[in-house]
């Protein structure tokens, strides 16, 4: 077993140990962090590895969440099929958005993704009859069960989140170490050179965006199941910005960076909001400091100083 795999398995093992030792409050928070970290991992595939900055990832998270929630609520689907529908919705949406948005580059891509996400958000509000708009809806307990597993209980929720997280982390490790994953990095580093090495850079970007949508959708659908709520706020602008921040803070283009970034930001907001009402100011200042002094993010710093082998 190589040290990369060992490191990732150690992280998973550590999270399992936390399950046994954490007090109730943090136990719930870490479950939430693990689900959101999958969203960050998805964002990182596109931004960190392929160099494409999207400002519209809330739409993929929401597509997973609503795909799951609406099919359970209105079509009576059981939890597992509803979960798969959520992932499918997000993946298909990412593919279609990619076909259109990838005709643009740089700032154009940012704006087009932002506009698609806004259109998605407004669509949710427009169909308020089904989606309950801003208010959202609470999933019934029948949509939060699988066999004997009741995802509304703390232990099951934590372990389900850990399963999702582990699967996503190992899948991502596999993706970025694959041939195609290396080409994604080549596209990020120098697209023209990658093209002149015979790689279809456009399809590589579409592949990255589609995978990114898949991860984001899996995160959104799981969030609905584990926390029982589906609401339009998850489709709004902040949820497009969060994954970007998590990835930047943790370290773009590293497999574990988004996990660290998500946990760090989550606890920073949690702590700051206990101290002051102006907690977003604390968050803002932290971000400015990190961008100025640690441009590679937390893990980027560790990697460049101590361990270049970290993927």
């Amino acid at each position, binding site marked *: 077993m190589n040290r990369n795999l060992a490191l990732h398995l150690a992280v998973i093992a550590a999270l399992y140990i936390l399950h046994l030792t954490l007090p109730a409050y943090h136990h719930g928070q870490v479950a939430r962090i693990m689900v959101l970290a999958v969203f960050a991992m998805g964002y990182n595939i596109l931004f960190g590895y392929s160099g494409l900055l999207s400002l519209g990832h809330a739409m993929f998270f929401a597509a997973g969440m609503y795909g799951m929630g609406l099919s359970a609520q209105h079509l009576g689907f059981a939890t597992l099929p509803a979960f798969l529908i959520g992932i499918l919705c997000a993946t298909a949406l990412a593919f279609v958005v990619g076909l259109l948005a990838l005709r643009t580059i740089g700032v154009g891509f940012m704006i087009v993704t932002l506009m698609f996400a806004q259109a998605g958000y407004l669509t949710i509000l427009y169909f308020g009859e089904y989606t309950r708009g801003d208010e959202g809806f609470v999933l019934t307990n029948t949509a939060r069960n699988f066999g004997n597993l009741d995802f509304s209980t703390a232990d099951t929720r934590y372990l389900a989140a850990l399963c999702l997280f582990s699967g996503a982390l190992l899948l991502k490790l596999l993706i970025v170490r694959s041939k195609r994953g290396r080409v994604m990095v080549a596209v990020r580093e120098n697209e023209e050179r990658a093209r*002149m090495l015979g790689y279809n850079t456009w399809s590589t970007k579409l592949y990255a965006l589609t995978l990114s949508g898949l991860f984001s959708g899996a995160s959104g659908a799981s969030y609905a199941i584990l926390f029982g709520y589906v609401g339009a706020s998850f489709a709004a602008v902040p949820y497009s910005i969060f994954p970007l921040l998590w990835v930047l803070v943790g370290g773009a283009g590293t497999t574990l960076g988004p996990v660290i970034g998500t946990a760090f930001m989550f606890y920073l907001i949690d702590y700051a909001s206990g101290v002051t009402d102006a907690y977003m100011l604390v968050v803002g200042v932290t971000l400015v400091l990190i961008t100025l002094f640690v441009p590679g993010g937390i893990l980027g710093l560790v990697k460049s100083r101590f361990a270049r082998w970290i993927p």
Partner: protein
Amino acid sequence: MDTMNLLETQKLTRHFGGITAVDDVNFSLKDGEIRALIGPNGAGKTTFVSLVTGRIEASSGRISFAHEDITHLPAHKRIARGMGYTFQITSIFPDLDCFENVHLAAQRNFEGPARKLYSFTRMILEQVGLNTYRTDIAGDLAYGHQRLLEIAMGLAQRPKLLILDEPTQGLAGGEIKDFMHLIREVSDRTTILLIEHNMDVVMSLAEKITVMDQGKIIAEGTPEEIQANEAVQTAYLGG
């Protein structure tokens, strides 16, 4: 069409606004040849090879490669059919290490296990003399070494046709010697089209020379013929 030809262009033309950078060029390159493409600055050499590789679209004319019409293929498909291209202005992956740069070039058409790809990459690095720098970040290498890395990326693709756009620019005397040795070595299995300003390199490497001026081919022949050609002297000396 001559069946011995690896590359052929017919009436290849490219306009940029009112300027015709490549004008009605009929060019052919035999399989296994080392050909130099020379001409004064602005003659259209880089534009010509950009049309061949698909970096720029032709305004009119035809290009065929390995007996197939590739005029309308996108660049990456032409490369995948067996062209290698090294840029005039060094174009590498500056934030990746040397090894990864060559590995990326080698992996596309490499068949076999990862271990073999790894040793193949090491062999290419060895061949251009960069093996000791393999873990260095490419962007931190000296300019001459970046040029060699670029050539290594060309070789790693094992192309049928390797197009080198001013490869010796910025290389020191000793490095140029090594470069010429390297090109002779790979020319057994690769056809080479070389754009070059260093006449010593051109005269000693090329079997045949094509001279361009103002978008047209003005002369073609062996090094001796070209040296004696009046039109070439006029183009170079501006006489």
